[in-house]
């Protein structure tokens, strides 16, 4: 693949004009990258449409490798990702629901062939640099994956005896089977890092005193927040911290729970806790949340899955006290609240003025949030912390104020999710590589960008531009009667190949960009007439807000750009509203002069192992 290609380079900057829009600079990779909404929204910038097309073509291994290069854990993420891509998906603005991007990724992982011969090999020659990685979760493993092939010696520390971090301890096996996690952690361990598993790091000062060229901290946010209300101490035996309890279940230390369980909290950990409880003997499991249903932090699909397993979610209830009798928990009392919004739109929960509610239960799981904890980092080693006791970390370079120490994942900016940890890992690896070579870490290498016409014949395109009208397909589940009996049985069966093909066909190929060459345009209006979404307008230039209002279909989504050309023969400019373009290519097909072309835009972010030095 070439680096930034010469094709599609924008014309020279236009002279200053009267309040009109300047022509779009399509030579800036960000412009077309942003059009690929899913890729732009993905923290790791995975080239989504490209791998979805490969899945449709049955090329699962190729689809997997694109994912693997960019997000390292396709099989894991295909089951557990927070999917920032899906709310961004253009399909969701065109019809009801976005493409099931996440679950298509899983298809690539499940249906691929043995891809081990495509993976990088352990470096034949070491470069003599030693990197310590604290924590064996997704962030550290990503750093190791990027640096090991370059010859770095990576030493991974973790308190647990296995690699995987929170992916192993906090995600229940009925959502993420162990074999999937083992396989993908195994690909990285196959690059032969040194592992110090089962060894808890107690002092960063001690690590720095060893002979390391750089240290990466990817220890997660390992402390579950507690709930300090009356009765907490007295009933402590049956009150558990959610993430600790999940870890204990994961390692097989906990195998049962009381018949009546209350889970406190509205995030994804709460959802995992309640569903796990149902499998360990919980017959009546209730989730209780302070906020309203819509404001809950849990992903909508996780809430759905919980409710499908007969777990009611109760909202607007704030815990007042744990009730107990003879040192044994008997239940929880809640105060009813309601939401009120001030002039600035900020929400406040105020008492509803109703009598308190008591819920009887045998066990309580507290899943009200996670915190970072760095008792093992000394405060006198030049590593600064902010007022919230979080390390000061540069969000681009991931470097702390101690030049040798880099952060990533939940350890960097508080609890996020796996895909963010991977994205941080890539950037930190890049920084570490620059740092170890004496280069400025703030000068970031350019991404690899390729843009190429997809025209193959007069009416042939190298992508399938016939837009599918199918609605989003549902992922089949195993029967509830079976899954609720086995905490290790995966609930989702995944798309089969046929469903995967149909779902993949829903993708609008947003990476096949509409590229306009104004010097070829004869302003015949053919593209305007044919465009099914009324995206294109030829009009005199104006300021952006005015232009947006006067288009064939007013451009009312300010988050989506207008693609604007320079003035043409008649003095008009071409304006394309990117918002709901189907990328069907009809504009290019109906263009008599080839002024419109459909070009595939491929962007891969710079990574330590792709930047040759």
């Amino acid at each position: 693949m070439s680096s930034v290609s010469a094709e599609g380079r924008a014309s020279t900057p236009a002279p200053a004009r009267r309040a009109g829009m300047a022509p779009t600079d399509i030579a800036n990779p960000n412009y077309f990258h942003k059009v690929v909404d899913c890729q732009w929204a993905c923290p790791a910038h995975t080239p989504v449409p490209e791998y979805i097309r490969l899945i449709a073509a049955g090329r699962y291994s190729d689809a997997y490798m694109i994912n693997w290069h960019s997000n390292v854990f396709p099989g894991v993420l295909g089951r557990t990702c927070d999917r920032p891509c899906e709310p961004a998906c253009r399909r969701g603005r065109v019809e009801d629901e976005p493409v099931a991007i996440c679950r298509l990724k899983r298809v690539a992982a499940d249906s691929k062939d043995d891809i081990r011969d495509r993976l990088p090999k352990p470096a034949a020659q070491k470069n003599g640099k030693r990197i310590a990685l604290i924590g064996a979760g997704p962030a550290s493993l990503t750093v190791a994956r990027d640096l090991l092939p370059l010859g770095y010696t990576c030493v991974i520390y973790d308190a647990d005896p296995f690699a995987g971090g929170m992916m192993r301890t906090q995600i229940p096996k009925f959502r993420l089977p162990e074999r999937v996690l083992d396989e993908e952690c195994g690909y990285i361990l196959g690059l032969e890092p040194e592992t110090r598993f089962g060894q808890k790091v107690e002092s960063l000062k001690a690590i720095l005193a060893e002979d390391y060229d750089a240290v990466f901290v990817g220890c997660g946010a390992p402390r579950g927040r507690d709930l300090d209300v009356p009765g907490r101490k007295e009933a402590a035996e049956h009150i558990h911290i959610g993430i600790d309890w999940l870890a204990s279940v994961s390692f097989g230390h906990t195998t049962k729970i009381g018949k009546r369980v209350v889970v406190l909290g509205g995030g994804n950990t709460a959802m995992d806790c309640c569903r796990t409880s149902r499998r360990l003997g919980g017959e009546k499991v209730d989730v209780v949340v302070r906020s309203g249903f819509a404001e809950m932090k849990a992903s909508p699909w996780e809430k759905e899955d919980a409710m499908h397993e007969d777990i009611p979610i109760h909202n607007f209830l704030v815990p007042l006290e744990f009730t107990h009798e003879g040192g044994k928990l008997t239940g929880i009392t809640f105060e009813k609240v309601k939401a009120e919004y001030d002039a600035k739109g900020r929400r406040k929960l105020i008492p509803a003025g109703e009598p308190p509610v008591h819920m009887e239960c045998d066990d309580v799981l507290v899943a009200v949030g996670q915190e970072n904890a760095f008792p093992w980092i000394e405060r006198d080693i030049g590593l600064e912390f902010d007022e919230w006791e979080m390390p000061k970390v540069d969000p681009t370079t991931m470097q702390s104020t101690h030049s040798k120490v880099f952060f990533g994942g939940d350890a960097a900016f508080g609890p996020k999710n796996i895909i963010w940890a991977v994205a941080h890992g890539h950037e930190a690896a890049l920084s570490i590589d620059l740092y170890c070579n004496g280069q400025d870490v703030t000068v970031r290498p350019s991404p690899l960008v390729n843009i190429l016409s997809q025209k193959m014949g007069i009416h042939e395109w190298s992508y399938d531009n016939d837009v599918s009208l199918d609605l989003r397909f549902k992922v089949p589940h195993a029967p509830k009667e079976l899954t609720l009996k086995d905490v290790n049985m995966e609930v989702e069966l995944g798309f089969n190949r046929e469903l995967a093909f149909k779902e993949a066909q829903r993708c609008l190929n947003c990476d096949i960009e509409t590229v306009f060459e104004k010097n070829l345009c004869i302003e015949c209006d053919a593209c305007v007439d044919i465009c099914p979404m009324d995206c294109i307008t030829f009009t005199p230039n104006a300021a952006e807000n005015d232009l947006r209002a006067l288009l064939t279909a007013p451009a009312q989504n300010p988050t989506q750009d207008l693609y604007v050309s320079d003035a043409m023969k008649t003095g008009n400019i071409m304006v394309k509203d990117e918002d709901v373009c189907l990328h069907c290519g009809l504009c290019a097909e109906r263009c008599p002069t080839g002024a419109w072309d459909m070009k595939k835009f491929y962007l891969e972010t710079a990574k330590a192992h792709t930047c040759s030095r």
Partner: protein
Amino acid sequence: MTYIAKPKLHHPGLPTNKLGFTRRDYEGRISTLCAGCGHDSISAALIQACFELDIEPHRVAKLSGIGCSSKTPDYFLGQSHGFNSVHGRMPSVLTGANLANRQMIYLGVSGDGDSASIGLGQFAHCMRRGVNMVYICENNGVYGLTKGQFSATADKGSKAKGGAINPDSPIDMVSLALLMGATFVARSFSGDKKQLVPLIKAAIAHRGAAVLDVISPCVTFNNHAGSTKSFDFVRDHNEAVNKLDFVPAKKEITVDYEPGTTEVVRQHDGSLIKLAKLRPDYDPSDRTAALTYLQEREAAGEVVTGLLYINAEAKDLHEHLNTVDAPLNRMNEDELCPGVDMLETINGEYR
């Protein structure tokens, strides 16, 4: 030509008309004409006009002859009636249909070959008779289907794609229509929908023969330097005599206008045509003056566009013949065949 169907998905904010239809509901099948053909823009203008007029598609009959232009009824109003007739014979077939059912809206779609060569006689006679129709001549000055020979409307001295110079005098469809008694005569350009859409709407509202001569560049055979029917030539030489705004019946005019610069024409159905005068001395109700003006400007090499002539009081064929109001298919056998006695009476009148 395009092989994939236009996706059914449409802009989420696409407006609907009084019937609950979107503009997309007035589309037809995807065009098989060359990419960039002016005819496709005319189809788009027809779609827009019918959408804006809240026309029920089943009330429209599209009739055409033979040629690129005559293929286009397949590409708009897919829910309407259509009839693809013999070359140049659209006017007679349409006249027959109109006599049988006067309650329909008739769109006659033809081109310069179909109208000015093989169908010239038919064109002239349906104008004379005042058949209530919109006659659209999609005029590109060239025989596209037979690879680009000059048609009868090609200007004398204009150049073919291969370099040949046209030695023959052109037939001017607009002048001919005026001479033959058409009561609504306009010329427009496929590349100017702002002008074309209101003209189509006003023509549909007109009672009598309404002729729209629409210059429609043939991108494949007649869009080069030396052609007088190219995008560039028409844009450079377009002289619009007026700018019009169509106000359907039962809608009040709310915008004030300066007297002297704007003229309002009320048609028989109560609809109004607001004409902003771009040429202050041009009077679209004066047929003789219109003919003279056209001759002058065209001698100067200009393409005169806009609403060129209108007789808002015109009567149509049905009034000339004193026919019944009801369509024939709504009349029963007794009404249609009044019997031997009635026949005898009628015959007796001629003895």
